[in-house]
Each structure stands twice: as C-alpha cells, then as structure tokens.
C-alpha cells in the first residue's frame, strides 16, 4: 500500500518515512523530527522574529504532523508539506500580533525627556566596536527582510536560507515558478537599496 501511494514521489525518502509512521512506525517520526526541527524553527524565526514564539509554533507544526498522520497522502514532497504548515501557522501568528499591536501599548514607553520609543538602546553597554558593528549589521539585515511584503519575504527566506529550488518555493507559497522568480527579483532590488550602505563598505 505504501509504494502505491508514493506515485510521483518515489524518490522522496521523507515521504516514505511519513508513510511508515502512518502505519505505526514511531521511530520514523523521530527521524523526521530530528531532520526538520532546526530548519522549521529557523524558518519561522526569520519570518516572525521572535525565538520563543518560533519554538512554540514549531512545536505546533510537529504536533499537526503527528496528529494528521492517518490522513497523510504524498501529493507533494514531504518538505513542501511541512514548510507549508509552518508558513500557515507563522502567518496566523503575524496576523494575531498585528491585531494585538493595534490595541496594545506593549513595548512603548517614554524616555526621560518624554520621547516615545519602541526600543530601548543602552548606550553605556560595553563591547568591542567590531561586535557592535556586526550586531548593527544583523539588525539592519533583519529589518530589511522584515520590511518586505509577505510573499517576497517568504521567497527570500526559502531561497537564501533554506536553499530550496524554485519549484518547491512555488509549492509552499502557492504560486507559479515564474511568480517566485519575479518575487525574488523585486525583493533583491529592495534589499539592494536598504543594504547599500553595508554592501558598498565590503
């Protein structure tokens, strides 16, 4: 029964593991958990920007994989399927945060001169100049990615950090390959403008 279900995904070892798990092989699920744990956490972290929340959402991703094993049919690569679950849960979290931010003053506080600031910077913090510059660069890169529209951001993360092919990115986002290329082109243009200062210094 397992082999027939694989159909076009006979080469996908992860789909085979998932089918084994569907038939009751729990160690197969452990192997998948080990393989995808870090990838999924990092993907979600880059998308939503919070480590703890990324870990919580990643837990939910694997819980869903576990719970819905009986209904699993390999219609796509396993990695496409699990990334899609992660994307949807991360998007839900972003929407929830956006809604919450509209009605909350969390993170906003006044400084001594009454200025409202969303982020407190400790100017007295000791540290090597190079380390500070590196942290500044990381912050700038994060901000640059964060300002991209959702689908461009997804395409950049999946291409740059997960090294996924265009076809798989298209499957995860739910668009064509040419749309993925277009998303990446536009994203790269935007990133070039935002990171020009650092790119020119290299």
């Amino acid at each position, binding site marked *: 029964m397992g082999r027939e279900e694989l159909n076009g995904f006979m080469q996908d070892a992860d789909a085979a593991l998932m089918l084994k798990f569907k038939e009751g092989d729990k160690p197969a699920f452990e192997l998948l958990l080990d393989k995808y744990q870090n990838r999924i956490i990092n993907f979600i972290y880059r998308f939503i920007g919070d480590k703890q929340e*990324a870990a919580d959402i990643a837990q939910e991703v694997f819980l869903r994989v576990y719970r819905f094993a009986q209904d699993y049919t390999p219609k796509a690569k396993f990695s496409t399927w699990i990334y899609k679950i992660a994307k949807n849960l991360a998007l839900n979290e972003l929407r929830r945060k956006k809604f919450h931010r509209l009605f909350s003053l969390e993170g906003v506080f006044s400084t001594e001169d009454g200025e409202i600031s969303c982020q407190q910077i400790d100017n007295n913090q000791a540290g090597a100049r190079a380390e500070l510059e590196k942290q500044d660069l*990381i912050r700038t890169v994060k901000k640059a990615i964060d300002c991209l529209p959702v689908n461009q951001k997804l395409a950049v993360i999946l291409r740059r950090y997960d090294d996924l092919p265009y076809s798989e990115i298209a499957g995860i986002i739910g668009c064509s390959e040419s749309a993925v*290329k277009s998303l990446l082109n536009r994203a790269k243009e935007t990133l070039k403008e935002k990171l020009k200062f650092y*790119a020119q210094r290299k």
Partner: protein
Amino acid sequence: MNCREIKPFLTQFLDGELCQEKSLEIKAHLEKCRHCSDEAVLLKESWDLLRQDEQLAPLSGFKTDFWKRLAEEAPALEKKKVIVFPGLKPRLAVVFSLAAVTLICGAYVMSFLSDKGIRDLAMLINDKDISMLKNLDLAEDLAVIENIPVLEELKAMDSVEL
C-alpha cells in the same frame, strides 16, 4: 543591449540562470558600463549580506517539550474522538448523506401514496351519486328536488315504522 534592457536580467545573470548567449551579452555590457557593473555588484553583495543573519542553534529540550506536550494533549484528543459530528470522516459523511436522501425520498413516496388513496376513494363515487349531488345544488324549488329519484327512496325509508 542598453542599460534599461540589461537591468531586468541582472539577478538571473548573477544566479547563473541565463542561457550562454544572453550571459555573454550581459557580461560584455557590464565590462563597458560602470553604472550597471556597480548595480550588479550591489545586488550580489546585498544578497550575500543576508548570510549575516543569525542562525539559531538547535534548541535543547525541544524534543522533550514536544513529547510532553503530546502526552498532555492525548486525553483531550481522545475525548474529541467520541464527539462524532466534528470528527466525522468523509466515508461516514457519505453514508449519512445517503441515509438523509433515502428518508426524504421515502417521505415523498408516503405522501404520494396517501394522496393516491384519496384519489382512489374519489373514483369509487359513481357518476350517479355525483349527478345527484349536483342536482341538489342546482335545484331551486321543491318540485325539482322531488323529481330526483333517490329522494323518493329516502321518503319511502321515512315512512317505514320503526
């Protein structure tokens, strides 16, 4: 190729996704055009800068937390399985749909049969009785009524001593 024509292909050129002919054309242009060359360098460098973004190290305790959470959720999931409607599987849904359709058809058939009974009863009333009833309706004086043969039978019945 001029600068405007080159620009849309720069990212694909840098990714090595263009055919050889196109790549050579763009390369030749970049060697002559400082502006496009600078643009290409910026695109490449900014893309490379993304690698600076930190990669989270594997979280210790992730798997332990996962199995713990699964164990905590298991009783709640078992409870949910008892509630049939929300967890209805597709095959059961088909069975219930067919049962519903059968019931609706059955109700229609029963209704049709009861109407048929009425129609059959109507057919038992003979033409003579219908004609009598019509005459009673239309008659305006006793003389007309008295001409109806059935009333003579009724009069005969009245005169019989009980």
